[in-house]
């Protein structure tokens, strides 16, 4: 018998935590798909380690979202019992792994943002979010360094690796605008010093990107058109497939525990 989706009362704070939790879970899941398939053992372990960090961040954020909602939900229900339209992650993080270069470009775009974002969030007046930020900030710094080194190695590598890295940058660029967008509910949280204005990070994010990308002999696209929708549940076709795998056990055996 199919398991019904849970309902979530998305107050601005619940939604805020949920969006960041979904980012971390979905990106972590994508990286975990490399486990056993990465081009070398060290990289297999690195991507799995990063996935684990993201999964840990997701758990803290889901737990907090459930607490803020104050209903019957918990981290597992939020992860396993919401359908694709209820997911609130960035379109960027659900994009398929593609080749190794595409995975690393996706990781680079996200980590460059996450590093700045979590560092700024350490000053949040919400003590739980500030605590999660303090933990995540250190992890993101390692993730960013790892991805940056790969972008340089791929871009400044062979013709083949350079072409793949550039193609990935061009392909994923349109999904980066969403990181800096806010809605009305988030504006109120920013006003209350609970959230930070992501738009204020864009300049530094671009500086980080430009430095690495030019060292890699690659180029950032000049286009400004950006795709949005993930934050309100309008996803690309890829997320449904990802969720069907991520949720299959709980959907098949409801409430099953290890």
């Amino acid at each position, binding site marked *: 018998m199919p398991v019904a989706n849970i309902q979530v009362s998305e107050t601005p704070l619940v939604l805020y935590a949920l969006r960041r939790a979904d980012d971390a879970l979905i990106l972590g899941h994508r990286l975990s798909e490399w486990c056993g398939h990465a081009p070398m053992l060290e990289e297999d372990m690195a991507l*799995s*380690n990063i996935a*684990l*960090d993201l999964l840990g961040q997701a758990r803290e954020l889901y737990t907090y979202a459930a607490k803020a909602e104050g209903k019957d939900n918990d981290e597992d229900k939020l992860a396993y019992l919401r359908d694709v339209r209820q997911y609130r992650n960035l379109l960027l993080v659900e994009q398929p792994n593609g080749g190794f270069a595409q995975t690393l470009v996706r990781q680079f775009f996200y980590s460059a943002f996450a590093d700045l974002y979590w560092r700024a969030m350490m000053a949040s007046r919400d003590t739980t979010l500030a605590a999660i930020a*303090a933990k995540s900030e*250190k992890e993101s*710094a390692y993730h960013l360094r790892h991805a940056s080194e790969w972008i340089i190695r791929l871009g400044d590598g062979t013709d083949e690796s350079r072409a793949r890295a550039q193609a990935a940058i061009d392909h994923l660029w349109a999904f980066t605008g969403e990181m800096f967008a806010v809605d009305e509910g988030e504006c109120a949280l920013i006003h209350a010093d609970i959230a930070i204005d992501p738009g204020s990070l864009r300049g530094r994010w671009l500086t980080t990107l430009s430095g690495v990308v030019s060292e890699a002999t690659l180029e950032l696209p000049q286009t400004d058109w950006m795709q949005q929708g993930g934050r309100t549940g309008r996803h690309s076709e890829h997320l449904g497939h990802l969720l069907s795998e991520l949720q299959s056990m709980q959907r098949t055996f409801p409430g099953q525990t290890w």
Partner: protein
Amino acid sequence: MVTVLERDSELRKRAWDAAASVVDPEIPVLTIADLGVLRDVVLDGDDVEVAITPTYSGCPAMNMIALEIEVALERAGFRGPKVRTVLSPAWTTDWMSEEGRRKLHAYGIAPPQASNSRRALFGEQAVACPQCGSANTELLSEFGSTSCKALWRCKACREPFDYFKCH
């Protein structure tokens, strides 16, 4: 005569010692006290609550450690012990004891270097080989066999080794 205060402080010490005896399942030479994961032990009457701070957000050893703490306290005579996870302040390798660093080194893992500042994170790293002591080493991978370790190689004795990362 034993006052209530003395009895409580004796009980708390017993609870602390029991919790502090729990070792990291991944690095069994280190106790959670050595690691700085054990933050506090609170007694309320006969109820005991242990506060721990996770090393990394997703560290799978934390569930195991929480379970082991409960078992250790039950064995020490405490009924229904509770383990609470405290996120703030965030764990840092600066909390690792000198004793812990010495034990890590003897175990063959290079201990974290003194400071967890971003400079230490991103500056030039020079990690001495825990096997032969040579400073002629190189980083193989930022991410090692567990979240908290990086993989290095000694160019003098040719042995690979784990380095407990600054955090």
